[in-house]
C-alpha cells in the first residue's frame, strides 16, 4: 500500500468514511470552545464596543471563502493536467461549502458595516471582489449542473474555476491596492497581529473549526459523488447490498 492507493475512488470512499466522524466531532468541539472564548472571555473592544464580536465569524468565513476556492482551483488544475477522476470529484464537493462561507462573509460584513460605517453595503474593492467570488461559485456550480456529460462538465467547471482564481489575490490585496472603506488585515504573516491575544485565539479556534467542518461536509459530498459515478462497479454494488 502506498499513497496512490487512495487515488482510487473505492479506497478513498472507505478512508473518507472513517475520517468524517473525527472531523465532524472536531468541528463541533472547536466551535463550542471558540464561541465560549468569543462571548465569555474576550473583552469589550474599546473602539467598537460589542459590535466587534462579529469578527469571530466574519474573518474565518472570509478566509474559508478564499481558501476553499484555491483548493478547488488546485484540484481542478490537477484534474485537468493528469486527468485524475477523484480530483474533479473533490473540486465539485467543495464548491457548495465555499459558496455558503462566501455568503456568510458578505452577510456578517453587512451587519458589521451598518453600525460601524453607517452603510450595509458600499461598492469598494474588497466588498465588490468578494461579491464576484460568490457569483463565481454560483456560476461554477450552475455550469456543473448544466452539463450532463460528466467528463466535459468536470473540465469546463475546472477551467472556469482556474480563470476565476485571479479574483482571489485581488480580494486579498484589495485593502492594500485601493483606498477602501474596509479595514486592513488584522493578521499579517509579516508583522505581529494588531489585536488582543484572547480575541485572536477565539478567531483562530473558530477558523480551525470552519476547516474541520469544511473537510467533514466535503468528504460526505465526495462519497456521494463517488457512489453515483461508480455505480456500475462491483464494489459499489457490494456496499449497497450490505446496507440493505
Amino acid at each position: 500500500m502506498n499513497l496512490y492507493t487512495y487515488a482510487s475512488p473505492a479506497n478513498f470512499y472507505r478512508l473518507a468514511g472513517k475520517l468524517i466522524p473525527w472531523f465532524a466531532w472536531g468541528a463541533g468541539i472547536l466551535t463550542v470552545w471558540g464561541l465560549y472564548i468569543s462571548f465569555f472571555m474576550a473583552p469589550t473592544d474599546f473602539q467598537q464596543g460589542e459590535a466587534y464580536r462579529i469578527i469571530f465569524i466574519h474573518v474565518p468565513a472570509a478566509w474559508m471563502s478564499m481558501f476553499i476556492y484555491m483548493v478547488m482551483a488546485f484540484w481542478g488544475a490537477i484534474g485537468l493536467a493528469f486527468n485524475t477522476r477523484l480530483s474533479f470529484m473533490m473540486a465539485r464537493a467543495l464548491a457548495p461549502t465555499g459558496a455558503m462561507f462566501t455568503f456568510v462573509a458578505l452577510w456578517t460584513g453587512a451587519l458589521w458595516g451598518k453600525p460601524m460605517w453607517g452603510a450595509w453595503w458600499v461598492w469598494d474593492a474588497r466588498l465588490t471582489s468578494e461579491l464576484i467570488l460568490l457569483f463565481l461559485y454560483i456560476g461554477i456550480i450552475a455550469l456543473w449542473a448544466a452539463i450532463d456529460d460528466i467528463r466535459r462538465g468536470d473540465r469546463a467547471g475546472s477551467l472556469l474555476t482556474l480563470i476565476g482564481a485571479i479574483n482571489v489575490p485581488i480580494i486579498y490585496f484589495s485593502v492594500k491596492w485601493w483606498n477602501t472603506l474596509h479595514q486592513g488585515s488584522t493578521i499579517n504573516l509579516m508583522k505581529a497581529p494588531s489585536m488582543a491575544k484572547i480575541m485572536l485565539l477565539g478567531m483562530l479556534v473558530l477558523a480551525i473549526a470552519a476547516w474541520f467542518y469544511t473537510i467533514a461536509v466535503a468528504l460526505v459530498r465526495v462519497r456521494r459523488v463517488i457512489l453515483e459515478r461508480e455505480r456500475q462497479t462491483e464494489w459499489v454494488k457490494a456496499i449497497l447490498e450490505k446496507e440493505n
Partner: protein
Amino acid sequence: MEWASWSDFWNMGGYGLYIWGSYGVTVAGVLIEVILLKRASAETRRSLKRMQQWEEQ
C-alpha cells in the same frame, strides 16, 4: 466576563440585532447545508439501490 445578566448578554451593548443577526444566519447556513446534504446522500443511495434491484430482476 462582560455580562451582568442574560438580558445584558442578549442586548450586546445595543448591538444585539447585528451580532445575533450575524450568528443566526451563520448557524442557519450551516444547518441548511448539513440537512440538504443528508437528504441528497440518502436520495442517492435510495435511487442506486432501486436501480440495482431493477437490474437484478
